[in-house]
Structure formats: C-alpha cells, structure tokens
C-alpha cells in the first residue's frame, strides 16, 4: 500500500519537475551544438561559393552560387601544394618516430627492476614542471644546427614526457607473464617491444598518435620561428599568414567587399582572398574531423589516466 503510494508520488514528481528541466537541458545542448558546429559549417558553405558573390554577404545556410573553383585554386596554388606536402611529411614521419621513441623509453622505465628507474622518473617530473623558456631553447636549436632544416620539425618532438607517462601507465597494466614467456623463447627487449607490447597497447598508441599527429599538423610556431626557407613552410603556417593578412586589411579600414571585387575583377577571376582562405581552412580541418571521432573511446580513457594519476 505505502509502497504503491511512494511509487505513484515518485512518478508524479518526476513528470512535473523533470519535464521542465529536460526541456531546458535540451534547448541548452542544442545551442551548444549549433554554436560549435555552425562556424565550421559556415566556412564550409563559403568555400563552395563563388568568392565575388560571397563578398556581398548574406550567405548563412547554403551556397548561393556553387563552385569548386576555390578548391581548384587551392590545389593548384604554387605555395600551398608544396606546403601540404611538408605538412603531410612531417605529420607522418614525426608521429611515427615520436611514438616509437617515446614508447621505447616508456617501455624501459615501466619495468620495476630497471636500475636507475627512480632517477629517470624524477628527471621526467622535474622536466615536466620546469623549463628554460623559449629563449634558451631557441639558442639551443640554432647551435644544434637544427635551425632552418626539416629535422627541426621532427627531432625536438621525438620525446614527450606527458605521452611517456601515459604509456608507462598503460604498459604497467600489461601482465608480466606475456613478456616473460617471450623472453623464455629467446626474444630480446627490442623484439618484445615491437612484437608483444605494441600490438597489445594499440588503444594508448592510437591516442598518442592522434595527439601527436594533430600537434604536427596544426603547428605553425616552429615554421614561424625556427625556419626561414620557403620550401619548409607548412600549410598551417601559410594559413596563419593568410588569416593575419585578412585581419589586417579589415582593420586598416579598407572595405573588404570593394577591394576583393576590384582585385578579382582586375584578374577576371571569381575567387577572392576570402574564398581561397575558406577553402584552405576546410582542407586543413577535414583530416582532423575525419580522424578524431574514431579514436574517441581511446583518448577519453587516455586523458583520464593522465589527468588523475599524472
């Protein structure tokens, strides 16, 4: 009797208050969704619209004058095409080498019986919290002869303490027996790492490859301050230059619409600096959008391990 009253009371309470809260939550979350997605969507539709036509504004939901010209321009641009090449190269080479290097160090230091383990771990913790800042670092890069070479993208990024700690936490959870049986069969540490540890650690390796790859792909800073040659420019750096220039023109008071139209008229083209910029932005963003959702379940775990135990 009292039980059924409780249930009914409960049910009534739930429907009245719950519904209001649910509706509010739904509206707030939809707003979050729109605020997050719309900026990307806006760039996306603008990149498919004729530049001249877009510069008069008023495009909010779909392209007004559909064209692929902006993308044709991006993929035939003498600056951007090689820059994409450099970006892809450094992302692939840099990520693979960094994950291998960091993984090998993490593998070694994750063994409890490793002589000097405490010293190695303490060195990592100190280096994680303290640094020399960018000036001594810059002088170091110059004196190592890395300045203005492709390797400045790869070598300083080989080892990441943060990723090393994430990997060490994962490796420690692997049963010792797995490694021991391989050792009895005569495998050395190198073989064990690549044939046993790497295959069973795919979740953490995928996460770190994502972090690393995105870091390489997005990095404009190294190009801006550690290189000078045009051949070493990355897509992110060129995009940064394009955007800064655009921002500056809009500030100096020049009317974007008019100048863009005039410039394009003079060259008898339909694209503008803005439409080209949008297409470049989309090309830079698309690989990230395509990759990260698939690694979601891994990096959510990875972030947790690092932040709570770290």
């Amino acid at each position: 009797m009292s039980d059924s009253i409780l249930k009914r009371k409960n049910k009534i309470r739930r429907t009245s208050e719950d519904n209001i809260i649910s509706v509010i939550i739904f509206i707030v979350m939809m707003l979050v969704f729109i605020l997050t997605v719309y900026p990307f969507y806006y760039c996306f539709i603008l990149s498919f619209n004729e530049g001249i036509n877009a510069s008069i504004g008023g495009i909010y939901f779909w392209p007004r004058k559909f064209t692929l010209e902006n993308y044709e321009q991006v993929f035939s641009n003498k600056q951007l095409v090689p820059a994409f090449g450099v970006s892809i190269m450094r992302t692939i080479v840099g990520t693979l080498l960094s994950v291998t290097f960091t993984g090998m160090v993490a593998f070694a230091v994750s063994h409890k019986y490793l002589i000097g383990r405490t010293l190695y771990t303490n060195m990592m913790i100190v280096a994680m919290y303290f640094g020399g800042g960018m000036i001594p670092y810059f002088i170091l890069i110059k004196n190592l002869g890395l300045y203005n070479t492709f390797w400045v993208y790869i070598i300083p990024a080989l080892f990441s303490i943060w990723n090393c700690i994430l990997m060490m936490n994962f490796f420690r959870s692997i049963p010792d027996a797995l490694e021991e049986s391989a050792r009895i069969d005569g495998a050395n540490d190198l073989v064990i790492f690549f044939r046993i540890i790497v295959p069973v650690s795919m979740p953490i390796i995928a996460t770190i490859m994502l972090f690393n790859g995105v870091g390489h792909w997005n990095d404009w800073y190294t190009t801006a301050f550690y290189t000078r040659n045009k051949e070493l420019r990355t897509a992110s750096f060129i995009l940064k230059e394009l955007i800064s220039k655009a921002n500056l023109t809009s500030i100096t008071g020049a009317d974007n619409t008019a100048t863009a139209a005039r410039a394009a008229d003079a060259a008898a083209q339909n694209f503008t600096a803005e439409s080209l910029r949008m297409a470049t932005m989309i090309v830079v963003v698309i690989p990230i959008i395509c990759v990260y959702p698939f690694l979601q379940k891994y990096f959510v775990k990875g972030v947790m391990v690092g932040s709570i135990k770290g």
Partner: protein
Amino acid sequence: MAQMNATAKGGTARRKPGNNIWFRLRQQWMLQVFALMGVAFMILFSYIPMVGIVLAFNNFKPKLGLAGFFTSPWVGFKWFREFLFDSQFWPIFRNTIVLSLLKLAFSFPVPILFALTLNEMRMLKIKRVIQTVSYLPHFISWVIVHGILVSFLNSSNGVINTALKQLGLIDKSLPFLSSPDYFWGVAVISDIWKEMGWWAIIFLAAIAGVDVTMYEAAIVDGASRMQRILHITLPAIRPTIMVVLIMSLGNLLGGGLGGSNFEQAYLLGNSSNYAKSEVLQAYTLRVGLENGRFSYAAAVSLMQSLISVFLVVTSNFVSIKLTDSGLF
C-alpha cells in the same frame, strides 16, 4: 653460481651483492639503452635550456654559441630593472594577470556546468553526438579559430555584424577585432568555445563513477532532480574539480587549462588592440626572437616562470591543507 641463481628478469637472488648490479646491468642492457635515449633527450632539450636561464643575468652574445650561456659578460639584474621600469611593463603585466584571472573565472567552471548538464540528458544518442562534437574545437588550431573569428567578427562583412545590422540592433559595425575594448571578451569566449568539451571529459568520467544507489536512495527520500545534482553529483566530483583547479592554477599565466594566452595574443593581437592584447609570453617572443634581445627576453620569461612556480606550489599546499588531495 650467482649467474645460475639469477633469473632472466634481472636477478633477484642476492648471493654475491658486489657483482649483482653489474650482472643485472648486463641482463638489462637493452632496456638501459632505451631509457638512456630518453635521458639524453631530456638533458639536451630540457636541462640545457634550464641551465640557459642564466642568460637572463648576463649580456648574451649569440656568436659565443651555447658556451655563451656562461662566458657572456655578467650584468646582474639589469634586464629585470629595465623591464620593471619600462613603460610597457604595466599594461603587459596587467593584461597577463587580467586575462588569466578571467579565464580562471569562466573557462574553468564552464566545463563543469557543461558536464553536469550533458549528464542529465536523457536522449542517449543525441547526448553522444553532442559530446563528440564538443571535442572538435580542441583539435583545431588557434590559427583556424582565428580564421573563424575573422569571418564572424570582422567589421566589413562579418557574420555577427551583418546579422546585428539586419536585425536593426546596431547601425554601425562593432570593431570586435580592432578595438582594445573587445579583446578580453573575444579572448575569453573563444577560449571557452575551444576547450569546454575537452575538459568536460574528465568531469563526465568522474560523474560516471558516482554510485547509482545514492541517487536511488535520494529519489526514495524525495529529493528533486536539482537537489540530486547539488547534493550528490557535485560533492562526488569535488576531488576531480580540485585536481583540475590546481592544474589550471599551475598554468594560470599561460592562460589556464587551454594555455591559450600566447597564441591568442600573437594571432588575434594587432597594432590596434595591442594595449589590451599583449601578454608576457608574446612580448618575450617579440623582443627575443624578432628583435634579437635574447638576455632581456629571457629575464622577462624568467619572471613569468617564477610567478608560475610560486602559484603551483602555493595552490598545491593550500589544496593539501583543505582537501587532502594535491598534485604532488
């Protein structure tokens, strides 16, 4: 004999302690090589620059190379004095502190609110889609965010200005990107937009770990949904909130959780909003790498590091005293 007793795993048997360590080293030489690769890297790229801080106290001559860290003429606190008495000191220092505190006040609590709200969502499919989408801005560089901001906020054909004009709310474009008055607002809002979903991961995971029976008991006791959030969920994730708070205090001057102060100042900053946009890190880079005043820039950077170290140590101490949980 000792060799026979020692296991392949580095030898736990200690018959002859004198020989044991060498034997173990021989057993694990390959692992030692792996570990020493990391040590060599850290010495080269972390510890040498740390030693290089001394150049804040001397007049570094680039042609002396790395040895110049020590062989350049000593000048004591000259650069520190120069910066403290520079007319730029106060605005830059103020911008750094104000932006950092604003981000602490807004960028830190918003992910908690977002996690609490998302957790209350009943439609699981939509919930998952929103969560996935909310991570996206974290993976996008500040360069792209800058590009988006330019197309939304510019004063000639920016989306926001055009929309406001069409709605009749303004008749002249607002100079979001070129007036110093708007910089702090734009910086904080874009920081929240970029990192909210990412930092909510940690809080959502903490919420997922809360014992379900507590909610059931609360329902039986007649607690409303708001009461359950305030009296069960929030206290349950308090330790996580403390850890994340200390982490963001540690990087307070860098811009908190997202560490966005530098990139925002460097990318969004320009000659017209410089008065409100320049921060210590960007200033270090401009005078150091762009003007070649290495020692002076190193002194500015060292001042920021000292303030940061002080903040981490203090906040960690306070946290241990108050809640028994700290980072170290």
